[in-house]
């Protein structure tokens, strides 16, 4: 019985993230538009786009291989699994122990790996630009992320997201410099990973400046839909990751009633909205940087993460 209930909750979480993801993207776009004194598309525009894309036929480049057609599903699956493993409104999900934070990051990493391959498959130079820059960014973002994980794991004594979250809720952490550093680093990484300004511009279509868009240039129809969906899932994942790690309040504990679940969901929605608005604000207030300034940007994140970890290592013995 309890197992079925857990299954239900896990399923609910998976559906929730899937449904909310486009909404978050829409929200960010809307807010940005408003900040730019524009009307902006309606909130549900992303859903409409997805559905339209799904309906359209796929226009496939001549020498695209079977891999090119599988990759969208791979990417989507990896991202979705990762997103559904991050505690959103309730800790201690049934399968949460099947992959810890490191594994989640690795899942996202594999999604990127396949996407980069896709960029190279058609054999145009745009795909090449996109992939090569993407892996360059990733090669710095991933270590930074791992460092952040170290910091949090050392604080919480676990790499298990549920455990971390419940530990951080319990409030016995207090304020720590390392956590602050980790938060900044995490935000930087999140921006880079989601191809947002200033690292990349999701709205651009000028080949030389784009990274993520260049990789998926050859995708169309349902494939494109899946990739877009995966992208917004990723955005959602990072927002809820930050939420669950640095603002875990209101999250429902494993064995609690429906009331708590309701509170948890409400709190989660609130956090998402806040995250979206903040992201929009940040993006409108900063300009995109040249590709080769990005390493410095991310290097800063890596240094912060390393610093945070070092602080913890040292403070352990005091």
């Amino acid at each position, binding site marked *: 019985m309890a197992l079925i209930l857990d299954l239900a909750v896990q399923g609910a979480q998976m559906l929730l993230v899937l449904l909310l993801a486009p909404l978050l993207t829409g929200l960010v776009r809307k807010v940005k538009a408003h900040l730019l004194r524009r009307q902006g598309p309606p909130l549900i525009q992303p859903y409409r786009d997805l559905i339209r894309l799904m309906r359209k036929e796929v226009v496939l480049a001549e020498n695209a291989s079977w891999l090119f057609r599988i990759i969208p599903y791979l990417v989507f699956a990896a991202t979705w699994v990762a997103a559904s493993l991050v505690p959103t409104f309730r800790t201690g999900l049934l399968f949460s122990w099947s992959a810890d934070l490191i594994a989640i990051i690795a899942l996202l990493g594999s999604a990127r790996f396949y996407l980069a391959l896709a960029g190279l498959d058609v054999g145009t130079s745009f795909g090449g630009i996109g992939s090569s820059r993407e892996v360059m960014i990733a090669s710095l973002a991933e270590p930074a992320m791992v460092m952040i994980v170290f910091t949090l794991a050392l604080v919480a004594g676990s790499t298990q997201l549920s455990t971390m979250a419940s530990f951080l809720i319990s409030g016995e952490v207090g304020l720590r410099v390392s956590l602050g550093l980790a938060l900044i680093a995490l935000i930087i990484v999140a921006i880079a990973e989601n191809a947002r300004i200033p690292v990349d511009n999701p709205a651009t279509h000028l080949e030389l400046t784009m990274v993520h868009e260049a990789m998926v240039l050859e995708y169309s129809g349902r494939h494109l839909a899946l990739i877009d969906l995966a992208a917004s899932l990723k955005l959602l994942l990072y927002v809820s990751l930050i939420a669950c790690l640095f603002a875990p309040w209101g999250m429902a504990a494993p064995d609690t009633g429906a009331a708590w679940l309701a509170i948890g969901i409400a709190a989660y929605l609130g956090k998402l909205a806040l995250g979206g608005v903040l992201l929009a604000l940040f993006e409108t207030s900063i300009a995109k940087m040249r590709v080769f300034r990005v390493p410095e940007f991310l290097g800063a994140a890596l240094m912060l993460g390393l610093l945070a970890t070092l602080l913890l*290592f040292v403070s352990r013995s005091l």
Partner: protein
Amino acid sequence: MVLAALTFAAALLAIVPVAIAAGRWSRARVVVYGASLVASLALVLIALASLFAPPSTAQLPLGLPWLGSHFRLDALAAFFLAVVNLGGAAASLYAIGFGRHETAPSRVLPFYPAFLAGMSLVVLADDAFSFLVSWEFMSLTSWALVMAHHREGDNMRAGYIYLVMASAGTAALILTFGLLAGLDGGYTFAQMRAGHPEFAAAILILALVGAGSKAGLVPLHVWLPLAHPAAPSHVSALMSGVMTKVAVYGFVRIAFDLAGEPAWWWSIVVLALGGITAVMGVLYALMQHDLKRLLAYHTVENIGIIFIGLGLALAFKAHNMPLAAALALTAGLLHVFNHSVFKSLLFFGAGAVLNATGERDMEHLGGLIHRMPQTAFVFLVGCAAISALPPLNGFVSEWLTFQAILLSPQLPSWGLKLIVPAVGALLALSAALAAACFVKAFGVTFLGRPRTPAAERASETDRFSLAAMGFLAALCLVAGIVPGIFMDALAPAVESLVGQRLPAQTGVQWLSIVPIAESRSSYNGLLVFLFMIISGTLAATAIHRFASDRLRRAPPWDCGYPDASPATQYTADSFAQPIRRVFGTVVFRAREHVEMPPPGDTRPARLKVELRDLVWDTLYAPLATGVGAAADRLNHMQFLTIRQFLSLVFAALVILLLVLAIWP
């Protein structure tokens, strides 16, 4: 047990004369490789059977006369024996098909089984002399295999550097054992365990030089990327995937088993070397465009990862935290197994490509996924595994290493406190770069459009090779989704070395792995795998069912500048360019010279990139020049006149008499 193992090793040696006799007979390869396959499989079975069995020893009246040659098959030896011969079996199977294209079979066939036997004997040896003999025998046979195609490229140089460095390593090991044996020459490992060596520092350094030079630790790695690609591909796979592991075995045997209790600072040396090796290796690899050389450099990286695991284990053992040590050591050894699997797989793939196109240079390949889809698939699996992507096996061992690092804050010593996080960062960096590197390797080789006619005419490789590669790919997946079994298989070896074993993993529900405690960390490859399959198929079916499944082929988007030339694709070098700009300027003194013809000039623009191998320039080049200079200086002695020689004799006499005169 050990006797059975020795019998089959001897059987491998017995193949050699057959191979020599068979000579250029066309079917000889089937016989030799078939026999090797059988023998290796038998050895694998023996090893698996004795994984959990108590150590069995044997003594033959060979080797050092008054000592005899001792052999011992304990858990550690059994594990490595299994790794070695698994690789050996796969390589033999692969070679049955691959060998058809061998141009000089009579230079390969005799040495191949000898090489396998040598590696197995190293693992089995239980006294210094037998160990060294097998060790150097292994080097020697592999040298012969590297020289098999001695007339191609700079293979001769590769073989030369390889042999010299291998002998240097052996010399270091001889000195190590000299120290361990002590004055009364206790050359058996049993005596060494009993004795208490005094020069711990010298022992560790010498062991690192000896085993590290064979394993490819930076800065002793220079021979590796030259020699491994030079050999025929199935041998390259063995050298990269297996022989380096034998080297790791040598280090583990000495550092954990023979040298007694580790000093606290050992781990610092090992960790630093491991971290540097990991990052340097992958950066080197990123700069290559020769597929096999890239793979060889990647071996260097993975050796670094393994040594990080070993270093952590040493640290924990020194501060007697056995459980943590067990975790770190398990991580290291598991990576030994994983790397042997996917590196062999990748080299097989490279060999298949080489046979199909006659090209090792990625810049001349491309689009092979259309011509050789199965090879492409298994190669992709290998790439994903080596890039540590879940749910494959590479990720598991790296995950375990990360877990071990997360246990290290409890370590009291400050040096470790400072170095371990840095090493963690290096490890993460190398993992990310590895992913980048294999995007490049697979993307440029198999994806895109063919860059040369050779690549255009490629055809799928033979079924033996495919069988071997498929087997290894399956192994990558299995080891990735049910790692618990493999970790448990390691438990006895680990316990024998650090005194404690991880909690049994196979008992855990849902087959997930829980190194320390579930609240702390756990990973379940199987579930992740199922999740991805389910959600992927779910999405696919849903879309095809409810939305459209129509598809139309069209030319790719060309920005309005149509041009058919595949030369416009991204090349390996251009793909690596951003990373080269980020890291290369420091590590390789990378310089880019662009010569852009003025407008109206029709000459092509040229971009020249120059990279410098600082390790070679700072360490080896001076050494070589020094020896050369000394040789030149002394060479004048050849041209003295008789009178001058007489004066030498005279001087010697006078000096000796003076010595006598002033002698107290």
